[in-house]
Each structure stands twice: as C-alpha cells, then as structure tokens.
C-alpha cells in the first residue's frame, strides 16, 4: 500500500493525475508575458479622435506615435462616417446588438466598420459563451456553413494524396489544403490533390500551403485556387520578424487577386506570446489589431482562432472563449471566418471537443480551417484538433445536434471506387506527362491505405523529380487537363476546365465564397446570412438533412431482421401445446414469442439455441430435466418466467427473452419478483447461462444455489445495444398473439 505523505498525494489525486488532461500545460495568467486571454491591464482603452477627416489618435496612441499597424488601420481600416456613432456607444450596448436576433446583421456590420481594435476587443470580452454562439449564428457572412480539410502525408505520395483528396471531397469538404514535409515536392502535391478532388466532387478549392513565392506561382498556373498563408501579427516587432509589413501584405493580397485567386489572411492568439513579443497585451486585443488590419488591407477573410498558438490560448483562463471571440470579431468586420480548430490543442478528447463544439453548433463559414481528413501521423501541418480518427465522431455530432458541419457520410463501396479512380487517374497523368511511373502494387496499396504507413517502401525521390519536372516544365492546369483527357479521364478533364472557367468571372473572390457541387458560388453576396431568430437563417434542405442523418452505422428493424435471419437454424420446431408437468424435477424454460421465428441471436453473440443448450445442460448437471416452451401472449420476461414456473412440475421456471435476458422464477412469486436475474444480456457468457440452469435445478430440489453475479464492465453497454434492443423487442412484439396458448418447442439438437 502506498502511504500518502507530504510528497505523495492520496490515491484519489494520484488517479486523477494520471488522466490525459494532465498532460496539457496550464499557465498561471501573466499579463506581462501576454499570457492573458480577454483583457490585460496594459491593453489601451478604446478611443478615436478625428480631425479634418483624419485619424489623429486611436486607442490612446497619437498619430505621430502610430506604429505601422496603427498607421495602416487608421488610414484605411475605419469607416470614419460611422466612427463617432459607434465609439460613443457603450460597450454593453454594442455587445447586445451583436447578439440580439432583432438587430440585423447589416446594422452590426455598419457600426463595427467604424470601431477601433480596442473597442471591438472590449465588446467581445463581454460576451458569454452562449452569447458568442448566438453572435456567430447571426454574424457569419455566408448563410450555408462549410468546412475545410487538410490532405497531406509523410511521403508526399501522389497516389495517396489523390485518393485522400477524392475521399475528402466526397465527405463534403469544400476546401482542401495540402502542404509538404519536403518543400520541393509542393508542385506534385498540388497536382495530385487537384486530380483527386476533381474525382471526389465538383468545385472543391485547392490550396498548397508553402512559402509565398511558390504558392503564388502554383496559383498563377491554375494548379491551386486559394491561399491562406499570408500571416498577420498583432505587434510591429513580431510583424517585422515575420519579414513583412502591412504594406507588403496589402500588396501580396492584391497580387493573389490579380491572378484570380481567392485568398484569406491568417492570424490568431498565441503567436506574439510565443515570440516573446506580446508587449503585455491580451491575446484578444492583439488579435483585434490583426483583424482590423485584415479588413484594412482588403483581404476577404481571416483564418484565426489560435491556429498554431491555439494551445497557448488554451493554457490560460478563458482561453477557449478568446479563440471563439476571434472568429466572431472577424464576422463583425464583415469578413469570411475560417474558424481555427486546426491544431490539436489538448491531449484530452473532452477538452478538444469542448474547444470545437460551440463553433460546430453555431456554424461558421468554415468550421475548421483544416480538419485533418487524414490520420494524425500523416498531418504535415501537425495534428489538427479533429483528424481521420474523429470523422465518424464528427458525423455523429452533426446528427446528434441536427446541425450542418459541412460533412456527410459516403457509402464504403463508393469510397473504395473513388479512391481507386483517383489513384488511377493520378498515375495515368504522371505517366503520360513523363513525371513518374507507379507500380500496380503501389496503386493497390494507395487505394486501400488508411495512412502512408500502409504504403510500404516507396520511392520518395520519384516524387521529388516529378515535382521538379512540373515546376521546371512550367506545367499549368491546361497540361493536367489535356493529360487527363488523353488518358481516358474526360469527365475529370471537363470538370477542371469548368472550374477554371467559373473562377475567371471572379465571383469567388467575394467574401466567404465557395463553389457548391453545381459550381454555383455561395458567398456573402449570393448566399447572405439572414438569421434573425428562431425560424430564420440557414436550415439544411431535406436532402442535406438526410445526408446528415443517414450515417452508415444506423440500423433499422429491417437490418436487424436480416441479421437475425442469417443466424436461423432448423431447430426449435413447434411440438404441440405446452402441458403442465408432474415430475418434481421438471423445470420449464419459457422463451419469448419471436424465438424460433425471427429472433435467433442474443446480444452476447451466442445463438438462442446455444443459450438454451447451456441452460438445459446446467439443469441436467443438477439432475433436473428441462423443456422449452414458447409463450405467445407476452414479451414481458417476468410474466414469461412466472408462467413457465407454473407449468413446471417443480414449480421453478426459467424465463429467457430472445435477446438473452434471463431469470429464474417460482410459481408462488409475484410477476415482477424473481430468484435470479441476468439483466445485462450482452455480457452473459456460456458459463453463466449454464450456472443459471444449475441454480434453477438447485431451487427445484430445495438445495442452496450459489447466485451468479451480474457481469459488469465499464463500457457504454447501453449506448452500444439499446438500438438493437429496441429493434429486437419490435420483432418480439410483432409475434405477440393475445390469448394464444403456450407451445412446446423441440429441444432436439440443442445440446
């Protein structure tokens, strides 16, 4: 025994210490280091002084002291026509307007256009979690929520990338973001994802996240269609350390647009803290500066909510609330929100779910700025907060709450086909263009792989040389289209050309734009959020609702009937009316109405004949003779057991429902009483049924039984079996015939 002492906590605490949440780091709030979420004593108070149409003081800083961020925001980021009005509003009043359904989104947007960073930081800090959710529901730009996937692997394997892109597109992700462990592989990754996505679904936007120049180059060639790596930081020194200024970022933003590429900037809490450059300011205030700057430079959207610094925010009090404030603030600035959740912020499944759930429920332009559609180990951005390990969990969450998180179930056979087709198309294009050759074995492995570890040894140099050939050869989307066409993938070639045409109108450069699968642009312009309280705003269409509801694990009575039928045997034939026994060693096993008809397998996996065999064997061991009688007028186990006992010569009966629940009854007891009960049917073993038979015999003989303990474990037995129980009971009830007498069943072949 461990004796607790001053150095050794008691067992209860030692046990708690071992839980996974305690692998996380929790920081003491420290404003001087910037380790503070919503408000630091060093944050400036909101303020704005305008003179002759020019901002001369903002958030306590005079114009001559503006750093480069202040200067850019003051000159370009604020609507001075509304500034006086909004700055004069009490913080609580603006906060209430952000939340209240009866204040239109447009009004909040109009006001916030003139609010300084410190003003919005103060306002957001007032919102409680449920209010943040209300604000997000109302203020996001696009009515229809959506989602983005990470598609990467450790090897930059093109066939696996193509198969995984097709998979991600089929699951419903409308943006796919890839990146590389080896920078020079980037062009190959872009091509593989482009091909795969075109196989999986029409209209998916593709990003290859690498350094600016290469990323822009891939976009210019039409191989990728959006970018989100343009990073903003909340202090001038950290911004400069990032080798940019607001002006260089503004120019870059225009450069992407000039090549017809959708683009959003990236910011989020924790980056400045990690660089020891937070200047004592709160995370929310620094992010308020980033978001104001994002609007000022003309970016259409922002990826934030911590991003790489999410776990820094997660380490301080109110940190997760701060992350959601960031997303809502982006929406208040009338920008697209790509709402983080893309970095694993905790070792605890509960904490990481707690971080993400409010955003799933409220709905965002992109619920994740990178859901890891591949396994954690293959995520070259680092594990996301949700990964391939969690896709089924996410689908279940959508279904549980009836919300649209952008994903859908795809039948297993369809996934198999899409993966094969995508990998084949990718291989054909690489071969046709002389980029690389892949073996049949490699292709088969890529199709089946759950991750790159399933590929075996691959030739990573071949990927590098393919990427080199794409880049040096100046390959464009047209070369990929032509190669697809010439190798027999005309539909995919046509799909990519269609998308190329659709992009050229520029409609998808508007705020929060995605393409739907019919290549219609859904954006703040074409699909504006009109939430104004219950009964308004986005609601999944009936077909979309069906996609959300119909997860592949769902089972109905018909599925169960077929499953039960597959276990049917030529046993338990009716053998005439059940008669009262006279022998004092006669014990009756009463079974439920569907036994021997529709119900053949109990919840433990044992067939009903196997269970009966064990019960009969147990009776026999103790010198009793058992017989099987089906009761056709009730599904109630107590009544079946009691009726069996009343037929038995010994006065002892065993009741058995087809699902495996069993008890011992005696003729003089009340129906709901019993001598022994196995209530947890899924956990009952052969040995336990035999023991129940033996104990029934001991009761019959007047001997002392050794009662069996109900088996117990810590699994969610009810979650696992309740749906089956409901269906099994429906099968039982369908055979109930009131007033129909009990009948003997043949015990032949049961032992």
């Amino acid at each position, binding site marked *: 025994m461990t004796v607790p002492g001053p150095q050794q906590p008691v067992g209860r605490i030692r046990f708690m210490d071992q839980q996974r949440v305690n692998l996380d780091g929790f920081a003491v709030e420290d404003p001087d280091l910037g380790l503070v979420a919503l408000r630091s004593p060093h944050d400036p108070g909101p303020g704005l002084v305008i003179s002759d149409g020019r901002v001369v003081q903002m958030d306590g800083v005079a114009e001559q002291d503006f*750093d*480069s961020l202040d*200067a*850019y925001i003051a*000159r*370009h*980021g604020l*609507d001075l026509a509304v500034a006086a009005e909004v700055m004069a509003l009490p913080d609580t009043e603006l906060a209430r307007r952000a939340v209240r359904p009866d204040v239109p989104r*447009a009004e909040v947007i*109009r006001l916030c256009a003139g609010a300084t960073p410190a003003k919005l930081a103060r306002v957001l800090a007032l919102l409680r979690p449920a209010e943040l959710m209300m604000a997000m529901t109302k203020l996001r730009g696009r009515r229809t929520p959506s989602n983005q996937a990470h598609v990467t692997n450790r090897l930059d394997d093109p066939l696996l990338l193509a198969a995984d892109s097709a998979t991600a597109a089929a699951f419903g992700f409308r943006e796919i973001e890839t990146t590389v462990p080896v920078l020079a592989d980037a062009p190959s990754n872009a091509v593989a994802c482009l091909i795969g996505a075109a196989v999986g679904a029409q209209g998916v936007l593709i990003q290859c996240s690498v350094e*600016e*120049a290469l990323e*822009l180059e891939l976009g*210019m*060639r*039409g191989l990728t269609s959006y970018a989100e790596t343009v990073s903003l930081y909340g202090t001038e020194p950290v911004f*400069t350390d990032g*080798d*940019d*200024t607001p*002006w*260089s970022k*503004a*120019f*870059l*933003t*225009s*450069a992407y*647009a*000039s*090549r*017809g590429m959708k683009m959003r900037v990236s910011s989020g809490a924790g980056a400045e803290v990690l660089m020891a450059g937070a200047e004592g300011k709160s995370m929310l205030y620094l992010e308020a500066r980033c978001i104001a700057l994002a*609007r*000022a430079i*003309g*970016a*259409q959207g922002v990826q934030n909510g911590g991003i790489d610094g999410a776990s820094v925010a997660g380490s301080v009090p109110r940190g997760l609330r701060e992350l959601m404030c960031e997303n809502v603030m982006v929406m208040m600035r*009338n*920008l697209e929100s790509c709402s983080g959740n893309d970095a694993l912020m905790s070792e605890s499944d509960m904490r990481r779910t707690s971080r993400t759930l409010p955003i799933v429920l409220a709905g965002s332009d992109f619920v994740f700025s990178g859901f890891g559609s591949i396994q954690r180990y293959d995520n070259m951005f680092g594990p996301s907060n949700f990964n391939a390990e969690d896709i089924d969990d996410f689908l279940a969450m959508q279904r549980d709450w009836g919300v649209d998180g952008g994903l859908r179930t795809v039948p297993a056979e369809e996934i198999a086909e899409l993966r094969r087709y995508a990998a084949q198309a990718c291989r054909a294009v690489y071969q046709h263009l002389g980029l690389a050759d892949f073996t049949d074995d490699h292709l088969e492995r890529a199709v089946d792989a759950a991750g790159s570890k399933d590929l075996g040894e691959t030739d990573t140099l071949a990927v590098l040389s393919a990427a080199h050939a794409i880049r040096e050869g100046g390959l*464009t*989307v*047209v070369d990929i*289209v*032509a190669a697809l*066409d010439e190798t027999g993938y*005309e539909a995919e*070639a*046509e799909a990519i*050309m269609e998308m*190329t*045409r659709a992009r*050229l*109108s*520029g*409609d998808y*450069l*508007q*705020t929060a734009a995605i393409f739907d699968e019919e290549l219609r642009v859904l954006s*703040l*312009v074409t699909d504006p959020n009109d939430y104004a309280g219950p009964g308004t705003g986005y609601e999944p269409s009936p077909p979309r609702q069906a996609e959300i509801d119909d997860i592949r694990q769902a089972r109905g009575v018909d599925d169960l009937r077929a499953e039960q039928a597959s276990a049917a045997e030529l046993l338990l034939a009716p053998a005439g009316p059940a008669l009262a026994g006279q022998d004092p060693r006669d014990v009756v096993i009463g079974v439920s109405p569907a036994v021997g008809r529709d119900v053949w397998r109990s919840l433990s996996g044992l067939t009903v004949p196997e269970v009966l065999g064990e019960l009969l064997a147990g009776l026999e061991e103790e010198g009793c003779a058992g017989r099987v009688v089906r009761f056709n007028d009730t599904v109630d186990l107590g009544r079946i057991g009691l009726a069996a006992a009343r037929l038995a010569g010994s006065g002892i009966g065993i009741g058995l429902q087809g699902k495996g629940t069993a008890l011992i009854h005696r003729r003089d007891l009340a129906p709901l009483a019993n001598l022994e009960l196995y209530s947890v049917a899924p956990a009952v073993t052969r040995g336990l049924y035999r023991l129940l038979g033996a104990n029934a015999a001991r009761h019959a003989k007047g001997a002392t039984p050794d009662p069996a303990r109900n088996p117990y474990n810590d699994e969610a037995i009810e979650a696992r079996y309740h749906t089956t129980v409901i269906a099994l009971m429906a099968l039982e009830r369908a055979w109930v015939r009131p007033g129909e007498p009990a009948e003997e069943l043949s015990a032949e072949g049961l032992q």
Partner: protein
Amino acid sequence: MTRAGERPPGGARALSGRPVGELTLEAVRRGEIRVPDLRIHPDSLERQARVAEEHGNPQLAENLRRAAELTALGDDEVLAIYEALRPGRSTAAQLAGLAASLDGRGLPRCAALLTEAAEIYTRRGLTA
C-alpha cells in the same frame, strides 16, 4: 461598362481577351489555351470591386482595384515589387522611384500604396 454585379454581354473574358466560354476541353485538345487565357481580366476585377463596395467592404473593393492594375504586370515583376516592400529591403527613395514608375504606367493605386509605405517606413525604421 456594365452595372455592378451584372455580367458583361457575352460573359466574362480572360486576360487574353478570349471569352471565358471558349475555354473548353475542345480548345484544350486543339492546343489553343495559353496562360493568358487562364488569367482574370481587369474588367472582371473592377466588376467585383463594385459588388464588394455594395456589400459593405470598400477595402476589399480597393484591393480588387489594385489587383486589376496588377494584371498588367508579369509574375516576376509582381514578386519583385512585393520583395521591395518587405522590411529593410528598400530605401525611401527606391520606394518612391518605384511608385513613380508604376504611376507612369497606369497603376496609380499601387503607386499610392508604395508612396505611403515610403513615408511610414522612414518614420518606423523599416527602410534599408
């Protein structure tokens, strides 16, 4: 010019002037599609700028108008200007010179961005 958000007659054109509708798989098969056929036309960006203005985002509109100007420049030149704007790369005079050159070539908005950068960079020590 067409009204904001309205499609120009015959649909959008690519930078090359080719109507977007002509960018078909058939045209690819005939080997007719070149990079300028894949690039967005400044008129499309101008049209989007007006849409952005009407939807409460004049800054996005300004960005799209700068972008419209930049369609006239080659990729290398665009990247060279970006490089010149990064911290510590250019003197104020170099930025001003670049601004003047862009202004002279019909890129006044980009020129204004560089002029302003020269002013602020000097004050904040971001020049070379």
